[in-house]
């Protein structure tokens, strides 16, 4: 069953009266439970594609369907519940809110939903990544690997159907990178979540069900595992 479908996606930017085409007619389908890796050289449009697929940005042309709902022209506030309940995000730069502790960062999406068990769920997730002792630490007091594990917990707290990850191990050393990847895959398996991941890392790509390669804004290659 298809969870995510993108049709003829185009994205252009205007810089100093010059139109730059970043994505050019990209189409992609992701089935429920699938693990898709998007790869490509720097500047190929990977991150742009991720922002469009996840509803963080609007395409210049084309359509995107998530869980049966067309989102390409939906307003910012109409997309907010979708991002909150259906989608989870993990970023290369972690993007934890600096003023919130590890626990508060994880609780935040659940609190937006006014879940009473937000703290309970957050603590449970922290325990699964082995960071219970770091619950009250601010991001500035955590190491890179710890930050990414907290970010992973935050992405999973509302049990999303779809998880987007942008170079989740890109800012980590190999040991921490492996740890985060293991936990990411473990959570994917435990919660049956669909994973769309952008990476340069061939080892991660090797673990995917399907690898999509972008080149100059166009989809060049789709390799099944």
């Amino acid at each position, binding site marked *: 069953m298809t969870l995510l479908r993108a049709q003829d996606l185009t994205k252009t930017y205007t810089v100093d009266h010059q139109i730059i085409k970043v994505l050019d007619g990209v189409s992609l389908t992701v089935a429920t439970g699938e693990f898709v890796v998007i790869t490509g050289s720097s500047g190929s449009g990977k991150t742009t594609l991720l922002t469009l697929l996840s509803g963080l940005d609007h395409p210049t042309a084309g359509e995107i369907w998530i869980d049966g709902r067309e989102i390409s022209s939906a307003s*910012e506030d109409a997309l907010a519940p979708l991002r909150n309940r259906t989608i989870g995000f993990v970023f290369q730069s972690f993007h934890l809110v600096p003023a919130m502790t590890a626990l508060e960062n994880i609780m935040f999406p659940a609190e937006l939903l006014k879940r009473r068990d937000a703290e309970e769920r957050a603590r449970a997730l922290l325990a699964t990544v082995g960071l219970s002792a770091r619950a009250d630490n601010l991001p500035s007091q955590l190491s890179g690997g710890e930050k990414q594990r907290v970010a992973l917990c935050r992405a999973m707290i509302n049990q999303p159907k779809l998880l987007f990850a942008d170079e989740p191990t890109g800012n980590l050393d190999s040991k921490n990178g492996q740890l985060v990847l293991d936990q990411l895959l473990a959570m994917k398996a435990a919660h049956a979540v669909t994973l769309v991941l952008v990476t340069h890392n061939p080892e991660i790509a090797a673990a995917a069900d399907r690898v999509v390669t972008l080149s100059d804004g166009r989809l060049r290659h789709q390799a099944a595992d």
Partner: protein
Amino acid sequence: MSSRLRVIYRQLVGSSRQALVFVLCVSLSLTTLTAFSGFARSVRQSLLADARTLHAADIILGSGSPFNPHLQGAVAREAAAGRIESTRIHTFFSVVRTVDADASLLARLKVVEPAYPFYGEVVLLSGRTLAGVLTQGSIVVEQLLLDRLGLAVGDLLQVGFTTLRIVDVVTAEPDRPVNMFAFGPRVFVSHQDLDALGLIEKGSRIRYRLLIKVTDPQELAPLAAHFKTFADPERERVDTYRTARSGVRRFLDNFIFFLKLVGIFILVLAGMGIQSTLGALLREKRQTIAVMKTLGATSRYVQRYFMKLTALMGGIGILLGVAVGLGLQWLLYRLLADFLPPSLHFQWAPSGVLEGIAVGVVVLILFTLLPLHQLRYLRPVMIFRRDQPVHQKRWPAWLSAAALLLFFFGLTAWHMADAEVGLYLVAGVGGVILISASFSQLSLWVLKRLTVRRLAVRQAVRGLFRPGNATRPVMITLTTSLAVIFAIFLIEANLDATFVRSFPADAPNLFFVDIQPDQRDGFARLVDQAVTFYPVIRARVTAVNDEAIDRERQQRTRGDSLARTMNLTYRETLLDTERLISGERLYRSDWQEPQVSVLDEVLEMHPMKVGDRLRFRIQGVPLTARISSIRTRVGENLSPFFYFVFPTDVLGNAPQTVFTALRVPPDAVADLQTRLVTAYPNVSVIDLSTTLRVLARLMQRLSNILRSFTALSIVAGVLILTSAIWATRAQRMTEAVYYKVLGARRRFVLQVFTMENLLIAAMSGILALLMAHLCAGVVCHLVFDIRYQAFALASGGLVLGNALLVVTTGLLASWAILKKKPVTYLREQTDG
């Protein structure tokens, strides 16, 4: 502390510098207005509470001529019925002299009866009561008089045509005008000596007052109304202690008016600071906002979240502003202590504090609405592209500007109690801001397109266009505040230069008033120089074209008004210092009815033109005259001038005194004054150069107070600049590190940052100076009618001073950036 509050607190700590600047902007916006408004309120309350004492009576009857018999009869009847007590007072200026005619001095005489004062106390050095010592043949004087004439208690003093003995020294009197208006020491004279003084002639400048004490306080208003029915409204005033505007109150009302203008001006500029700093703070929080939105937070949630943050900072700012405002209020009391009655003390009014808080809340809402609204345009994709341009709609900005304009109009109209002034102020400040904004836009447009060869300057120019640099708001705020401060300085410098420092060499410096017509020849012989005598007839204008003068409205105006007693004169020719601007000759030969030539300055008090009819009342006698011509004064001069000049046949026989003005070498003034008043004790001599010096000193003191407070508006500019530098800290740091990595020394980085701030300072300083010169030139030309001097050196100093301030602020705010080592910064970036 709840979890959410804790997070908001941490957000504040995380942006503590911007939060501090924001709090300071909020508090600055309120401080001055709270202080001035509180000062005005407590002064008004105190004056009202002490009003009986300040007027020494319940009802005050005042006139420039003896009271009409009907009014005197009414007072006598009520006194006989036991409903009131009354006492008479005569006040006037006269030159007093030592009995050996060695020295003389212009003094303020107050002739009183034993019942004076009904309220309050005349405090004497000996501790005795005034009634106890002021008997026939004795006087009580101020210490200043003894010092200036070298006399002591027990000595004799020549006052008018009689000699009186000094029996005590007065240290305080309840209804005395504040110090600043006192051009001469006080002399109390017993009413029994009034005739012996021989100073009351027809047309003399004497203020007659009848103080009344009401037996039953309930009867106050009915009795005042009763006396009003007998008073001649053209020349006699009836006031109760509640309605009378004392000299203190008039002065304070005027001064507070200007203080409040300054307060509102600072509020506008600090408001711009609030908006700009909140913008900078929210820019710092863009990543957090993008993360929140990515995780599913709606725009409304984000707005509410930052609204709470803003409310917390604003609340602290408001409390701080009100507290500092109270401190400033206390300082104002200290600074103006000489001008306030001794009974007036600092007191804070809770209603003033509440008003300050209310204004603060409205200011906070109005100035933060736009930046908070703009949060909805921030998109979650900013998580990847931090500097992505934000596409905003224009209508919220226009709506916000309209709301602000409306608020300022309302605030000004409320504080000034005058919608017209509110409109002018909003238009004036709006105009200056608009010009500053247009010029800033234009100069930045030109700078952006300029080809600069020198590397440091080129980088500095590029720096001005750094995203989030707030160059425009900094320039607008600095330009606007500097324009006002420079303008005040230039106007004051021009007034000082024209009237005080370079007192015109040929201008008369001694004015002689109340010369009796039969003293002319003797006077001319005594002064031994050519004298032009000007007959003076005291009168009131009662109607223009049969429309009665609205005295209440006239008295409310801040300039001269037709409500006061005027000095008329008669002559057949124009003076050398005058020319006609309407009408072909001074008088028309084809009109048979009485004519009058009017000075153009009268037209500012009431519109009138040639052919209009003016009705006067000259010591009870009505006279209607048709305007034959309008005159104007030529050039800046201190020669005598008259608003109304009549043909000799119209006023030649009216009761009159004579006035003249002479140029006397300063070292001969004292001797001439003494000789003259020995021969003619009724003549008062006013030394204009001394009077102007005293006035200039007072003016300087008051304008220093105004200028010091106005200077606070610069703080708004400095705060915005600091906030902008801190907001662009990351970019500046990157630039500085890259310069260093590429081989530049710290000196180069310093040059770039200094040059950047210097450009802002130079552009804002020069425009401010141009606007200030324009404004000061117009004021000097149109209001004071004096030649305008540019004060090139001082002007340069002002621009230089501003440059120094801006560059120093810029460098201090950039200090951490300059000190940063490239390796530390790069490691921090890699650690992410």
